[in-house]
């Protein structure tokens, strides 16, 4: 121990003699006072020798002139930068672009992960899912549960602190006879404001939603209706669902964008309870129902409750309560909990609160990977370019070394250089990010704000990236450059570093493989999107204007509605009108269990309902595969039914022809099938085709479809609007064109495609930088060779070929590496779609050609300049 201490403490030169001295004293002491004491003394002496730590150490480099040296380094950096403007710009720009791309993604990913984290209870808040199971098979997997389950959980499970239900709907409100159609209306329990963090700016959260016919609205809605926010005590008329004036008892702040549960209006739950009272029992159906699954139910659990254990326990409790019903229907239910923070990214159930906003956890994860990837590519590129450039700096290194610079100083110098460049790039990147945030925010469809840049975490990350980047990207060039031997450099000989070249080749192959992958990915995504937009959906959606129907408000409505349709049909600009409860592209929430009449309840399956009038199939040009359409002349058709092919299959009938005349039962209705329509795509090609049935109901007025003849949409719009207001004064007039409406289902794919394109561009740019660097490097090394070739009569084109050949081979290798990768990744992606394109060989060829052309341009510039130089210049420096 003592010896080891000495060896550590004392300089090499002295260690032996000091040890000798200690040993001698030790021996004396052993004689005089015994081994133990001597040992203790030895150890003590060893420790005390610490004072001699600095004795006879080899002189350290004491940089008394640190500051001037650093100043000199920085001066040198800017001189080299200025000397080689193109190169420097490329290098810094590449790094800056990489950093800004990375920052954008980090910003976006950060936003996506922030969903619902603003609730102070978010770790213990869960949404109750609703599943109907038949045996092992999940028949319904829904985000909204039945109204009874929330109270039942609270009664039976001690872990439940509180629950809140939210029943989403659309409604028309009126104030001073001005009507507004409003989305995001939620009928909620009083506890809603308690378990979630939606702070009230006016009113009292505890009592606001206790009584019936109370209303809480958001700040911006208050401004829209009243022009001010303090509107507690005012009234708004609810026109749809249950016409009723509602008293405003509270105003909340607007719901944050990163909430999966958005509202503009909160109606007290008692309001709906009063309207669903069962006359026999006196209980409200909206409290007792186990079937009506439209209620998003949230529970707040006690701190530290394990949801998996909770689910298991609740399943048992539930079975006790519901087993008779299960035996009767031979189906079971499950209500698994889902953390609310998972809803935005990882949930894709029926009746999601904001289906258009639903995020995709995989994509977000994929993006964070890409962010890291981009950053690494950018750094690699920096390394690549600086090592390539190192040859030009070699002379400087030689001179510095012969002037007495230590290797360590040179390493410092190049690290400082890398720090300065990284810093410059970071400043540019931050500028870019701040400048482009609004554009990117639109592109990514996420409200990214510059506020993100004020967070301390962000700056911490920036400093981290800067430090890591400087060291990582500076280390290799620093060591390479500082290891040059001055004599050789100054003589003009350069040792070619085999491993260095290999590294750079590897980098180029890597970058190009990434580029090819991204280009091919872009092409495939684009083609799939096109395929989806162009492919035959089974119905026609051009020139189709859809009007959201007015709400029925009195007994004359049905007649007026009919007259309105007739007036539309009478217009020369309108070819045909039809009214229905749903239109293609709109998710159907109306479901029933259906079976053949002769079968029992066990064979029930879920069908989706669209109630239609006589002209629906004509208007949409949906093929009737067998049987016939409803006929106006046959009054008995109300007892008949049209279904789609998927429903035929679900009924277990072999062909559409056989289905005709079969008697079926759905809900409480008995119907005879008179026609089968083709499997048109009610929803996008991403979705499966569900069994649909189309009961006849001329009065269903949710959507009015008008097929237009002319193309002067503006005039038609005004014309129809006038008629509409004529028949339904005060009702809001809202329309959309079906193609636009339908294609909004591909919003995510469009984003995906745009993001892909962006990254592809970036990757190619960076890869070209790398290639450019490599070409310059190798061309410089072969200056003499080229000179000699030219003297011996080689032409410019020959030299260009010689110089480019190597890189084109690299690009080829990159292609070969990328192909299986593309195939795997894109095949996986395409599997998300029920109707997908095949990955053809042309995609590979096109992307390969594209990359090759870009590579040739990148290499060509440098090789051309080099092959044009006068050979005298190349050979003279000898």
């Amino acid at each position: 121990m003592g010896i080891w201490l000495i060896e550590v403490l004392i300089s090499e030169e002295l260690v032996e003699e000091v040890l000798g001295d200690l040993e001698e004293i030790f021996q004396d002491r052993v004689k005089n006072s015994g081994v133990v004491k001597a040992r203790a003394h030895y150890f003590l002496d060893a420790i005390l020798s610490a004072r001699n730590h600095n004795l006879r150490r080899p002189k350290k480099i004491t940089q008394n002139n640190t500051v001037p040296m650093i100043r000199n380094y920085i001066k040198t950096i800017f001189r080299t930068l200025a000397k080689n403007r193109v190169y420097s710009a490329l290098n810094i720009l590449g790094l800056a672009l990489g950093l800004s791309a990375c920052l954008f993604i980090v910003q976006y990913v950060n936003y996506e992960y922030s969903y619902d984290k603003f609730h102070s209870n978010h770790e213990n808040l869960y949404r109750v899912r609703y599943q109907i199971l038949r045996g092992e098979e999940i028949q319904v997997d829904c985000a909204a549960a039945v109204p009874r389950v929330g109270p039942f959980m609270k009664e039976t499970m001690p872990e439940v602190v509180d629950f809140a239900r939210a029943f989403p709907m659309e409604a028309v409100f009126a104030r001073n006879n001005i009507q507004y159609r409003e989305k995001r209306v939620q009928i909620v329990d009083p506890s809603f404001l308690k378990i979630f963090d939606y702070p009230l700016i006016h009113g009292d959260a505890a009592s606001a939603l206790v009584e019936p016919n109370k209303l809480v609205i958001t700040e911006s809605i208050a401004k829209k209706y009243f022009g001010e926010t303090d509107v507690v005590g005012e009234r708004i008329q609810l026109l749809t669902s249950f016409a009723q004036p509602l008293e405003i008892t509270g105003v909340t702040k607007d719901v944050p964008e990163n909430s999966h549960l958005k509202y503009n209006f909160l109606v007290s739950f008692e309001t709906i309870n009063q309207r669903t009272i069962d006359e026999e029992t006196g209980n409200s159906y909206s409290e007792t129902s186990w079937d009506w699954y439209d209620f998003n139910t949230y529970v707040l659990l006690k701190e530290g409750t394990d949801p998996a254990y909770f689910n298991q326990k609740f399943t048992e409790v539930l079975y006790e309560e519901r087993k008779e019903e299960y035996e009767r229907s031979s189906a079971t239910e499950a209500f698994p909990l889902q953390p609310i923070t998972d809803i935005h990214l990882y949930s894709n159930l029926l009746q999601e609160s904001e289906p258009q906003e639903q995020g995709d956890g995989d994509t977000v994860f994929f993006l964070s990977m890409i962010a890291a990837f981009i950053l690494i590519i950018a750094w690699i590129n920096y390394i690549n370019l600086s090592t390539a450039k190192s040859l030009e700096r070699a002379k400087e290194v030689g001179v510095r070394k012969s002037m007495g610079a230590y290797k360590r100083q040179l390493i410092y110098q190049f690290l400082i250089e890398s720090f300065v460049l990284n810093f410059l790039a970071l400043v540019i990147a931050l500028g870019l990010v701040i400048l482009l945030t609004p554009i990117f925010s639109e592109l990514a469809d996420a409200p990214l704000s510059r506020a993100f840049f004020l967070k301390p975490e962000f700056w911490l990350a920036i400093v981290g990236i800067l430090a890591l980047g400087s060291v990582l990207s500076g280390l290799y060039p620093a060591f390479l450059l500082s290891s040059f031997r001055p004599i050789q450099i100054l003589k003009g000989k350069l040792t070619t570093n085999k491993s260095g070249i290999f590294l750079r080749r590897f980098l180029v192959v890597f970058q190009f493989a990434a580029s090819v992958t991204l280009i091919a990915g872009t092409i495939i995504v684009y083609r799939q999107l096109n395929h989806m937009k162009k492919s035959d959906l089974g119905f026609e959606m051009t020139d189709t204007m859809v009007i959201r129907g007015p709400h029925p408000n009195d007994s004359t409505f049905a007649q007026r509605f009919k007259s309105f349709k007739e007036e539309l049909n009478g217009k020369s600009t309108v070819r045909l009108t039809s009214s229905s409860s749903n239109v293609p592209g709109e998710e159907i929430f109306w479901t029933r269990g259906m079976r053949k009449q002769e079968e029992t309840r066990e064979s029930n399956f879920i069908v989706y309902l669209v109630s239609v009038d006589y002209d629906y199939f004509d208007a949409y040009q949906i093929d009737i595969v067998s049987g016939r359409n409803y006929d106006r002349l046959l009054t008995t058709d109300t007892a008949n039914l049209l279904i789609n092919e998927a429903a035929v299959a679900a009924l277990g009938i072999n062909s559409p022809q056989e289905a005709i005349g079969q008697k079926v039962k759905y809900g409480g209705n008995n119907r005879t099938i008179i026609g089968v329509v083709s499997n048109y795509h009610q929803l996008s090609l991403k979705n499966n085709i569900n069994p649909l049935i189309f009961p006849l109901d001329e009065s269903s007025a949710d959507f009015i479809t008008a097929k237009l003849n002319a193309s002067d949409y503006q005039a038609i719009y005004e014309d129809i609007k006038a008629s509409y207001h004529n028949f339904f004064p005060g009702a809001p007039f809202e329309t959309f064109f079906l193609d636009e409406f339908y294609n909004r289902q591909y919003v995510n794919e469009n984003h995906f495609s745009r993001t892909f394109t962006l990254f592809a561009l970036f990757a190619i740019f960076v890869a070209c930088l790398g290639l450019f660097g490599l070409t310059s490097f190798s061309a410089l090394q072969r200056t003499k060779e080229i000179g000699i070739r030219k003297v011996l009569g080689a032409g410019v084109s020959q030299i260009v070929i010689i110089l480019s050949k190597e890189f084109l081979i690299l690009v080829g290798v990159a292609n070969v590496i990328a192909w299986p990768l593309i195939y795997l990744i894109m095949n996986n992606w395409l599997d998300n779609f029920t109707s997908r394109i095949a990955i053809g060989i042309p995609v590979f060829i096109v992307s390969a050609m594209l990359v090759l052309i870009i590579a040739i341009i990148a290499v060509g510039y440098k090789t051309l300049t080099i092959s044009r130089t006068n050979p005298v210049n190349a050979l003279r420096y000898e």
Partner: protein
Amino acid sequence: MKGSNLGEFEELILLTVASLDMEAYAVSVKNELELRAKRKTTISAIHSSLYRLEDKGYLVSAFGGATSKRGGKKKRCFQVTNAGFAVLQEAKNLREKYWASIPQLTFASS
């Protein structure tokens, strides 16, 4: 270095080395100090002084023979240089001058 003045301990060591003639190395200096000046010192203190004095040019060193007692390790023997003697001399002279300038050998306490 503050001029060529010697510290008290340094002066003692220098004197010890001088008196030990050829046999001055760290351990013997330590023993000698204990013997003559009744000073208990640690070996590390001796080391630092010896090497510092060598750096100042007052001592030179050479490797002496190894003994089995030392576990076969070399020892460094010190000798006083001319400069070392000069500086000792100077210190002695200085003191003598002061002694000479004390008017009489009477002391306030007596």
